[in-house]
């Protein structure tokens, strides 16, 4: 039975992916991509990774999909979407087929010759879990055992926003998209947004002992923000620029401060003081959730807003 589900899922995933790739219509591609994300979420659950399933649904399918769709809409609006899309050349097709087949063969070869791993990392995790301050392994890994990765990862997020902001060159940009004056949406929003906020809080809270955590919570928050934004309630415009920035950076800053304080306290970087791990992790997660929400929103709005023309930038040098 399980096998059947798995195989169906597998077939579905591949089919959807193929459709998404090869579909003539770009819109269709994006839709199928979002669909793929959702299907994958199922797959993740089958793999016993509900955290990833959540993240996939919220981030992989949700945020990415929204971003893609929004861009698509923008491109559509200018009407030049498919015009200059010519058929790729024959050699390119050949190259593509060749490389993907090679990749697949290589991967298959690798997968079917899998040796037994010498190290059972999950045993180590189990062993160290009590010292981590949280009871959920994933959160422990993310925010304690491998918190350094997470720190850098948040850095990546911040950086993405930063690049967007830097490219924007002017902070007081008007959105090109007007708010959607859709009363139905408005009505939905009044119900949906609070629910999403609560979900987000719950996910955050749950993260310490069961699936959930800052990223999923942040994604949920972001989704709420984006919905608000789409409905014309523009968070970024209402918050002052400085506040917005502070919000964006809050998570990262808190993380960094905690990390540094441990160094000042004579411990290695990111090492939590004895017994304070749980609290500090929660603090970090809280800040992260807010920041991730804002960051994802910013990514959306930045992508959304057309940049200033290049003439205003680069006055000094090339």
């Amino acid at each position, binding site marked *: 039975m399980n096998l059947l589900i798995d195989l169906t899922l*597998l077939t579905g995933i591949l089919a959807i992916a193929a459709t998404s790739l090869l579909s003539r219509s770009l819109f269709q591609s994006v839709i199928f991509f979002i669909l793929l994300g959702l299907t994958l979420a199922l797959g993740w659950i089958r793999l016993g990774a509900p955290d990833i399933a959540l993240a996939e649904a919220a981030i992989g399918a949700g945020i990415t999909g929204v971003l893609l769709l929004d861009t698509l809409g923008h491109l559509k609006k200018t009407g030049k979407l498919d015009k200059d899309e010519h058929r790729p050349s024959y050699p390119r097709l050949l190259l593509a087929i060749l490389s*993907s087949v090679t990749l697949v063969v290589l991967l298959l070869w690798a997968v079917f010759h899998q040796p037994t791993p010498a190290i059972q990392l999950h045993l180590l995790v189990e062993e160290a879990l009590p010292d981590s301050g949280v009871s959920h392994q994933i959160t422990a890994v993310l925010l304690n055992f491998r918190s350094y990765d997470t720190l850098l990862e948040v850095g990546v997020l911040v950086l993405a926003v930063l690049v967007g902001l830097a490219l924007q060159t002017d902070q007081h940009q008007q959105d090109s998209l007007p708010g959607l004056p859709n009363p139905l949406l408005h009505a939905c929003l009044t119900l949906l947004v609070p629910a999403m906020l609560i979900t987000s809080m719950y996910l955050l809270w749950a993260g310490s002992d069961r699936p959930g955590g800052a990223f999923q919570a942040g994604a949920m928050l972001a989704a709420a923000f984006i919905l608000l934004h789409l409905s014309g309630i523009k968070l970024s415009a209402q918050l002052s620029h400085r506040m917005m920035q502070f919000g964006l950076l809050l998570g990262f800053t808190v993380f960094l401060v905690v990390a540094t304080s441990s160094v000042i306290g004579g411990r290695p970087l990111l090492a939590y003081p004895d017994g304070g791990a749980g609290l500090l992790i929660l603090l970090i997660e809280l800040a992260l959730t807010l920041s991730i929400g804002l960051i994802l929103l910013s990514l959306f709005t930045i992508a959304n807003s057309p940049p200033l023309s290049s003439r205003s930038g680069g006055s000094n040098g090339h």
Partner: protein
Amino acid sequence: MDTNLIFTLGGIGLCGLGLFGFIYHCHLLRRLIAFNLIGNGTFLIMVGFAQRGQGVTDHVIQALVLTGIVVAVSATALALVLIRRWFHLKGSTQLPEDDAS
């Protein structure tokens, strides 16, 4: 034929498809989608393959995949910012045709 293997294979398929699309397509959005396919495939392989080896649910790799997903979405967002800028400046959705990937 356990779940892990099946999804690993699924990941392989996604990677193959994604790579194909990434090379084959010129349209920047399509290539971005292809990239995301590769990403998803990779994540599947990561988890599936690791868990197949370990024989149990591996939380470490799941945490890593979470990180990976976040990074991927950042990358997508960044790429979209650039693409839209590019589109705004040049009115084109693909790069000048002087090379493949």
